[in-house]
């Protein structure tokens, strides 16, 4: 792995040796900066029982700039858009090199437990969430059932 920054090697080793509960992150065989991620939907959230596939990429400037992350499994959530892009402050202006892949994944897991319709990425979903929270939660459950259960990892 010559040429791969030591920081990335260390983080990768730790993710394997001491994984975050409910999350797996495995580097791609041909690209050590590209991780295949699986997040289990948190209990007591409308995503419970679902397995969500994400991908994470460490750009050249990492850790001076944030990892890039997106959902590959469709999800009904006010802070995640139809293309799987995530609205999360630490992925944007609140990024700090003191954060890690691990912290990013934990924050995404927390975002699933606590959707924030006041800082929306998908405005249609966010409006539904504010207008009729129970209805939106039911819809999120339906999406989880439809797209995140029994789904295979995308290629």
């Amino acid at each position, binding site marked *: *792995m*010559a*040429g*791969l920054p030591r920081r990335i090697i260390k983080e990768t080793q730790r993710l394997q040796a001491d994984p975050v509960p409910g999350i797996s992150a495995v580097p*791609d*065989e*041909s*690209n*050590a*900066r*590209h991780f295949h991620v699986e997040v289990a939907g948190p209990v007591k959230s409308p995503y419970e029982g679902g397995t969500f596939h994400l*991908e994470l*990429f460490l*750009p*050249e400037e990492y850790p001076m700039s944030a990892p*890039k992350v*997106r*959902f*590959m499994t*469709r999800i009904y959530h006010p802070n995640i858009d*139809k*293309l*799987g*892009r995530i609205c999360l402050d630490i992925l944007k202006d609140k990024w700090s090199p003191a954060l890690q892949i691990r912290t990013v994944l934990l924050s995404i897991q927390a975002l699933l437990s606590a959707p924030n319709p006041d800082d929306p990425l998908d405005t249609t979903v966010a409006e539904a969430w504010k207008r009729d929270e129970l209805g939106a939660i039911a819809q999120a459950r339906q999406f989880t059932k439809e797209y995140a259960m029994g789904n295979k990892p*995308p*290629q």
Partner: protein
Amino acid sequence: MAGSGQTECVIPRNFKLLRELELGEKGVGDGTLSWGLANDSDITLSDWIGTIIGPPRTAFEGRIYTLKMHCGEKYPDQPPTVQFQTRINLSCVQKDTGVVDPKKVNCLRQWSRNASLADVLAGIRDLMVSKENYKVSQPAEGTTYF
């Protein structure tokens, strides 16, 4: 691939395409080229629509050409496939189908993973102003292949 990508920073397909999408949404250059997803909820980021405004002082002047571009799973290691929707007489385009022959567009023939959908559109526009094409008579405006 040399060094199997361990040493250099290789941007994966989807992150490259998301960046291309953002560039397309911002609008680049003089606005004569544009591109975006054919379906805004296509989580696979595979099917794109591009447009080229015909360059001035050519037979294509002022016309708006719509093209379908498909990025397969191997993009950007492999180039997109491209098909005109708007009928056109152009040396790189199959007359009956609108399909672009990759051998006849430099950017597609000598594809590099750093190239983008914008480069493909620019490469096709360059052919419109080339000597062999710029005066060729064109089908009626607004007619399409499909």
